[in-house]
């Protein structure tokens, strides 16, 4: 599983790095960033889906294959 953030959609609500701090971080202005290469470590799939579901801007894409 891979995750990515649509930077043009992100408004910096920070729900992703609140809900899944192992997968997401914040830049200097509070916009969300994917940590590392975006490959979700085994066992963290639920956190990835939770972060995506909680994004008010629907800015997180979860790619199940990859």
């Amino acid at each position, binding site marked *: 599983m891979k995750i990515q953030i649509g930077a043009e959609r992100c*408004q910096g609500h920070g729900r992703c790095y609140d809900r899944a701090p192992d997968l997401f971080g914040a830049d*200097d202005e*509070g916009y969300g960033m994917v940590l590392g290469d975006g490959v979700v470590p085994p066992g963290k799939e639920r956190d990835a889906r939770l972060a995506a579901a909680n994004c008010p801007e629907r800015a997180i894409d979860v790619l199940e294959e990859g």
Partner: protein
Amino acid sequence: MAADDRFTEDFRDAREEEVIGTISEVVTGPVADWATDFSHLEPEWSADPYPIQDDLRQRCPIAHTERFGGAWLPTRYEDVSSIAYDTERFSSRSIILSNFRPPRELAPIGGSPPISSDPPFHHDARKLLLPAFTKAEIAKQEPATRAFCHSLIDAFDGQGVVDAAGDYAQHIPMRVIADMLGFPPEDGPRFRVFVEDLLEGINLPPDERIERVSRLFEYLLVQVHDHIDHPREDLTSYLINAELYGHKLAPDHVVGTMALLLIAGIDTSWSAIGASLWHLAKHPADRRRLVAEPGLLPTAIEEFLRAYAPVTMARLVKEDMHWHGVDMKADDWILLSFPAANRDPAQFIHRCVGSHLARLELRVALEAWLARIPEFTLADPAAVTWSAGQIRGPRSLPLRIR
């Protein structure tokens, strides 16, 4: 370095001359029909707006009133969200609906940037504030906020009934934002007057409203001069020194943003903390669950923010137009009730710059309260009062705590 001469008497005189807007007749009295004569200042709206909004959504989804010089109230999610995103047809130059419309020349900056700004200026003015309001930066406020919450509870000292709105909720954001702006912490009672003048005084005679609003700006100018003379590490000094497009900010911009941070920094969290305690006083099962499992608090907070979204914004129509079935005229107000939009995540449209701060204040305030006062009930449900106008929260909330 040349002295900073932006904030002189001339600036204030120029400011007063520029403020030539449109003043409308003040209309008061009970609402005849919410579809054609709504008023968000009426006590029945303050006490419980949701049944009114639900009724309107069914029979008149874009309600109208002749009050305030003409205003529209959309209650469907699609309409609220379309207007919030449509900066071509709707201006943000005043986001508090009142009997005074600022002149069009006030756009794109507006009176309290960036919330009152139209794009593209809005984006750039907002960007200036973002680094100071990241989650990491806001987390620095947590220890002092927690200590302050406990000191407020210490002061309850043996009382059986306390006013959770007046003795607890209001003081928390006042202290935090005063610290962040570098204002004297003992000025809290003045902040409350400023908040009420600005947000609830919208039907005052225009001269009196202008007089009260100018009291806020006079106060802010005193703080600006104090910071020019004694610069320090806080938001006021940051704004005085900040640059946009290669220049220091216009004096109106500096003072307008300070006004925004002070007012919006207080009323929203005050309302959210109060509404959450009101809910927990009325729902003992929810309260006991949170006391037993404090780890659920972050999830509960998201639900409180959804269910009791305290903020309603306003817009001004830019040009005459037929829009979603109604004939809107230039300079008609739109009351953009995010709570009315079906208590939907619509409240997150264009994220509030202070959202991390609001969440921190709400979480710490509830953690401290629930740890110290796990058992509490409404002392007198009839004595609970709610603010009038666009920001909704308890203003008197007597709770029995022992």
